[in-house]
């Protein structure tokens, strides 16, 4: 029920948003997600493939269901993974402020990936510089981050998944922006596309369901 409302039951919500976390390996995508979801911080193994977490939040009087997708940082499995870009309402582009190449790769690689694969024209992007707790090792200045954000017309924040500084704000910033875009609150193009694909014969009545042919 992308972008549409659902009432009734304990899991009711006004809107459901799909959010993606992308960026280089080891910039802290999974840690940001964990920090946001469970308030805990610990070392995580590299993400293989994709994973997602669901969180219900209240923003601006609306009850929202967030499905946040965490992806592997190495872009090797592009064609298999790119399908997950589809229908995203929001994309969080993450770099590590202590590793400059993770910042340059955002514009060199990841921004292009997003352009190529994301299906929602109005999809909201936010640029996040992670690991500000390691300020002495900083290799990308705040100003550079802001400049890149401006270039890609997105919001910019610096955070630390470790200290949880600004983590909530990153998501809030994104959600508030999504809520301002009417097209993202309607049934997105994804749903329409899916219904076209759904021309297969419908679900068979359960009594036909045999086993072990």
């Amino acid at each position, binding site marked *: *029920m992308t972008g549409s409302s659902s009432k*009734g*039951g*304990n*899991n009711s919500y006004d809107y*459901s948003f*799909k959010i993606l976390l992308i960026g280089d*390996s*080891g910039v802290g995508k999974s840690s940001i997600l964990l920090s946001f979801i469970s308030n805990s911080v610990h*070392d*995580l*193994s*590299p*993400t*293989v*493939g*994709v*994973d*997602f977490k*669901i969180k219900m939040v209240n923003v601006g009087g609306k009850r929202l*269901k967030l*499905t946040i*997708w965490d992806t*592997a*940082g*190495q*872009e*090797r*499995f*592009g*064609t*298999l993974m790119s*399908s997950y870009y*589809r*229908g995203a309402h929001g994309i969080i582009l993450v770099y590590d402020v202590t590793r*400059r*190449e993770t910042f*340059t790769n955002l514009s*060199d*690689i990841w921004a*292009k990936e997003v352009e*190529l694969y994301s299906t929602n024209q109005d999809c909201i992007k936010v640029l996040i510089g992670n690991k500000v707790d390691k300020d002495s090792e900083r*290799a990308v200045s705040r100003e550079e981050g802001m400049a890149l954000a401006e270039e890609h017309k997105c919001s910019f924040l610096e955070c630390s998944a470790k200290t949880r500084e600004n983590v909530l704000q990153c998501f809030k910033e994104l959600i508030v922006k999504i809520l301002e875009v009417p097209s993202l609150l309607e049934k*997105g193009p*994804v*749903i329409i596309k*899916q*219904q076209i*694909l*759904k021309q*297969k014969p419908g*679900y*068979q009545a*359960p*009594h036909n*369901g*045999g*086993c*072990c*042919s």
Partner: protein
Amino acid sequence: MKALRRSHTSSSSSNSSSPSFSSSGSSSWIHLRSVLLIVNSSSAASCSSSDRGHLKSPWSRRIKKHALTPRQWRRLFTSDGKLHDGGVKFLKKVRSVGVDPSIRAEVWPFLLGVYDLNSSKEERDTIRTQKRKEYEKLRRQCRLLLKHSNESFKLNESSKPSINIDSGSLVQYTDSSSFEDVVSARESLSSEERSPDVEYSDDPCITLLEGDDSSRQKTTNTDASALNTESSDSDSSEDPEAVIQASSSSEGQEKNERDEPSKEFISPSRTELHLSAPAAENFATWQRIIRVDAVRDNSEWIPYFQSYASVSEDRACCSAEAVGLKDYEHLEPCQIFHAARLVAILEAYALYDPEIGYCQGMSDLLSPIVTVITEDHEAFWCFVGFMKKARHNFRLDEVGIRRQLNIVSKIIKCKDSHLFRHLEKLQAEDCFFVYRMVVVLFRRELTFEQTTCLWEVMWADQAAIRAGIGKSAWSRIRQRAPPTDDLLLYAIAASVLQRRKLIIEKYNSMDEILRECNSMAGQLNVWKLLDDAHDLVVNLHDKIEASF
């Protein structure tokens, strides 16, 4: 491969009348569930009873039997150190009961094809020395490249802070003083402390580098041009070649998949041809990601490698420095030491098999091997043996992954048409939800001990196939299940089938199944899984093999 192109959003459901995220959903869904419940319970019962009825898994006797013991292992050898009957008895034993942890380091090189099953002790000693030298040569090349890329990084830091390597700095790097630095760094590398008999002089790599200036220059330039090509590719987000390969392979897929996996395997280029990967990644990229991943390997293996307890902080830091590890200050000495070993071996592998290089997930596969095998060069060659098959999981064209997901899908379709129809309804019949299990061979879902058990059994099957111990030999010894190259995929299908009821009754989107699969950790019994996998092999092997 249309089905692989997911068009789902996280919350969308294929059945528009049912809510997407609620097991307690609408009344119509509850109704549907109750109908399904009845169907499932009866069909599941008929399934298992019919399977159990006609063929018995060899693993069902595992409770009475113990893993291959050190004593049994020694008895398997003749006086000249050859395995009796070409290893048939050995493999049969391992595939039924696994290996005692105390002899894993000795047994794995046989399972992974480092040593031939018919080799004598003498032959193995020769191979061991030869392979150790080959590994050391790869390590030397890695250190040269690392040093070079660090220099290049510093040079470029202010202007263009990329990791691209330019030919200028490569030439500069051939300077003889840098070479000496590398040799001294090498001496501090942990694993090589224990190899005092290393000979430097007879190494072709050294000879090459110590040769006259013109030949040195020539070699270096070749490398540099290869590096340049790759680094310019890395600017584009899509590698045209990879795209073409991917599309043509999906069209001609059926043909490809009929090929035996062994035919599909392209022998890794010789080390002399290194850095020829047609990838949008280059060696410097791999070096960087390897280091990022090595320090975040999970520490579950620590209790399994007691000699790590004696690693001093100095020694750990020394080994970390030798491979250029960063950001390890928060780790325990034994973790630092382990991470440094992972880096050394993964980097050598990237050079050895540049078509694959390094891909995330490979550290998951290496970590248990490094834990079990204390010598880096032995661990490296075991890893090479493991990767002969597993490398397809990391191919840029994704053919290996697609083939395996297809087989899992096919197994589920043949075994449980009801579950399969449910997956089709959710557009999940491509089985993308088992992706992680396929890529890292259950490493994330099983504990260290469980993983090693599963892998040993799987390796024994693959070793049997390599040694040509085919169906006839197994039937002669009255073991019905033929060895298969794809035991893992049967185990993956089994883990999904074990959850059929839950999937059919409660899950109405691919995402929910993915989440179920990604949270299987700690929920699996490895011997039950192998039992079920084996039942599937016995009943479906011919059917599945015929169609791929």
